[in-house]
């Protein structure tokens, strides 16, 4: 393209850089030189559009002929036929258009000049002049009071929307709810999700029970329940009392080898539910924090830091397992004022 070889010429007679050889030679397509190839391409494009039409008809037939009956196989058939019809309808159009562009439309490359993004100097000057004129007209430069007043008004007015929004969006903002759960003294432990109270005798060796507080069925079907359950779920395990290591301040929190721990991970709150009976390890399937149930649910692997909170349990007169109290610390993930 450019054959400037003046100032870059060195003493040796060689330019400092190679010069652009310009565009490569244009290569003709078969369809450009052979009328038969051109005709064939045209037929192919038409056939592809035809496939699209068939696809559309097919999807319409599928829509009206195949009614999903609610079974897995029926729904799958409807999904498959409808989807294939749509796919053919779309792919037909797409492939046809591209093939048309590639094989039939002119493939001579064109060159377009670029211009620098920067505005020319005179345009810049004119632009600055217009802004200056505007500022002068507004008088803002001379009237400082106006500037301050306008800015204050503009800066303050979003409060009219932000304050009502922010104050209501967090509900009652009472974050101390984190530290209480539905458990209380004497509350029976019941199976999750069926709600059957559990006797100590039911919990034979090696069993793991997923536990919720024994509340009424109405409460279990209310919406508040999900939020309560999110804090109250407990895992109940019986192991050989000889395997159990109990901290001195937690003696009496278990009953005959039966221990209850919060199921909410102290990492980021997933339900820690994978109990490996032989090792007494509890594994969280989300991030693989592993807790040793035999040893105060201390962390043995993974990203959690704190042991799972323990629910102190005992039995009532009828032999049912009951909570001695609520948890002694907030369940779930750590937060800033957790210990306050």
């Amino acid at each position, binding site marked *: 393209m450019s054959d400037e070889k003046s100032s870059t010429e*060195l003493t*040796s007679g*060689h330019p400092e*850089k*190679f010069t*652009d*050889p310009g565009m*490569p030679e244009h290569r003709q397509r078969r369809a450009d030189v052979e009328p038969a190839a051109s005709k064939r391409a045209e037929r192919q494009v038409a056939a592809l559009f035809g496939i699209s039409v068939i696809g559309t008809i097919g999807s319409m037939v599928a*829509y009206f002929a195949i009614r*999903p009956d*609610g*079974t897995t196989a029926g*729904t799958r058939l409807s*999904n498959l036929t409808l*989807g*294939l019809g749509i*796919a*053919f309808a779309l792919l037909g159009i*797409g492939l046809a*258009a*591209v093939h*048309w*562009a590639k094989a039939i*439309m002119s493939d001579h*490359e*064109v*060159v*377009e000049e*670029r211009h620098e*993004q920067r505005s020319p100097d005179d345009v810049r000057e004119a632009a600055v002049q217009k802004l200056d004129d505007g500022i002068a007209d507004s008088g803002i430069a001379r009237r400082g009071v106006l500037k301050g007043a306008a800015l204050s008004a503009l800066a303050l007015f979003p409060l009219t929307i932000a304050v009502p929004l*922010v104050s209501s969006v967090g*509900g*009652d*903002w009472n*974050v101390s709810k984190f530290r209480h759960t539905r458990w209380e003294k004497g509350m029976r432990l019941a199976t*999750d999700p069926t709600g059957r109270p559990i006797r100590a005798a039911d919990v034979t060796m090696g069993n793991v029970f997923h536990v919720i507080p024994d509340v009424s069925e109405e409460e279990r079907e209310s*919406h508040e329940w999900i*939020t309560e*359950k999110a*804090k109250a*779920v407990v895992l109940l395990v019986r192991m050989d009392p000889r395997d159990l290591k109990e901290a001195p301040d937690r003696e009496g929190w278990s009953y005959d080898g039966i221990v209850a721990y919060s199921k909410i991970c102290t990492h*980021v*709150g*997933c339900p820690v*539910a*994978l109990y490996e009976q032989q090792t007494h390890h509890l594994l969280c*399937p*989300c*991030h*693989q924090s592993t807790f040793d149930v035999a040893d105060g649910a201390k*962390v043995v692997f*993974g*990203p*959690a*830091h704190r042991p799972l909170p323990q629910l102190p349990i005992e039995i009532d007169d009828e032999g049912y397992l009951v909570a001695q109290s609520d948890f002694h610390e907030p369940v*779930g*993930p*750590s*937060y*800033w004022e957790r210990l306050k």
Partner: protein
Amino acid sequence: MSTTTPAQRAANGTADYLDQRTGLGKAVKEFARKTFPDHWSFLLGEIALYSFVVLIISGFFLTMFFVPSMALITHHGPPATMDGVLMSEAFSSTLHTSFEVRGGLLMRQIHHWAALLFMAAIVTHMMRVFFTGAFRKPRELNWLVGTLLMILGLGAGFTGYSLPDDVLSGNGLRITDGVIKSIPIIGSYMSYFVFGGEFPGEDIIPRLFTLHILVVPGLILALVGVHLLMVVLHKHTQYPGGGRTDKNVVGFPLFPVYVAKAGGFFFVVFGVIALMGATMAINNVWNYGPFDPSPVSAGAQPDWYMLFLEGSLRLMPGQPEFEFWGFTLSLNVLIPAVVIPGILFTFLFVYPFLEAAVTKDKREHHVLDRPRNVPVRTGLGVAFLTAFIILALAGSNDLIATHFSMSLNQITWAFRILIFVGPWFAFWITKRICLGLQRKDRELVLHGHETGRIVRFANGEYIEVHRPLDEQERWLRVNYDAHRPLEVAPATDSRGVRRKGYASERRLSRLSSFFYEDRVEPVTPAELAAAHSHGSHDELETDTTSEPQQIDSGRAH
């Protein structure tokens, strides 16, 4: 203009009507034959754009049937495993859409596949832009817009993933809640801000719905507009080659070639997504069941584009949680969930400006770099991807464990080490490969192609004949800038006074050395001439002193 058909007359009339009222003619004149260069990698962004269009079409369909409510109802109807189960209206309406609305399941699957494809295409498109240096002046701002679009894409995916209110996505929200709570000082309040009270409450699904169908797509749409407008302003970049300069753009006209190619590609993208929706099941929420805070299922993972966060959380050991003055600081959550993504995204945002600073390059660039010609950039890009992939694999460690019969714990330990070693090694090896490729280019330019033809000279010497490169081949290999590290002026000026800003200049120059210390300069015409005269027997036609005798051709030894 002698004979016109009625159709032409109608078209003319409409055009005239519109032009008189909008001046449409000027826009048509300006844009109809606008030139776009042709290359497959320029279509990656289009895959993302078209996936987004498919998302809007299928998403509109879904909003007609979805009920964004967490109110509990008893579901009656298919599938059999969910009949008579208490669940939220959101989950129930998702089941209704899937099993009772004809084409509903297809639209759900198309929507979800399109979302995964949208992110995959964005990431691939960013890789193309990064490795070819398309983010350089004047396109730095468009890189920022693109990175924002990627983050908004993550947001769109996250808010949509949670809407069906199933166990899997519910646990995802729960993890989000745990991460929010770990933020120092305001964490608890942020959690209330998001959930309207304690997790999960009753507000989160309606809130996510509004974000998912209004706020996030609105922002994406607006930024896509800005993104494309800038492409029009800048005109598209082009790969290096004969006749392609920073002052022109070589390609095909928008009308008709790109209308057909790009328009056709939209249908191809939609068609492929429809094919996937028809044949491959995705996010069968009835398998997971309605959200309940107690269950969780093995293989609890987010969609692929969030896997790096999941992996980051999984790799972090639990030790760094601290308690002081009665406050808890959970660095075991903050580092993987906030700091690591922060570093990754900051790298993306600042890289164009960093590279411009260490290069002191103020020119406009419209011809792309071949990745090998900027070894450090390419190395950094590959290191970034390596970190991303290691984190994503760490997020899949349980599936790796079951599918390759390995220990979960050992895999985690391996990734804990790899996340430090892997990116560094990837950088080093990529940079060496780039430099090696550049040397190979030099070699080729200087000595030409090996032909496999062996000749013997009168003096008994054997050589292989090399065919010189044609000028197009050569131009591709010599047309680049090998930047040099920035020089620092002396610390003191001529009068011995210490210069202001010397320290920052020195820092910049050190960074610049990191980028450009190792470099391979392009061959100059003088070097080529010298190579020809030295190795004169490489070129038979320049050899006049001896009479070579050809002894073999083809694959001789």
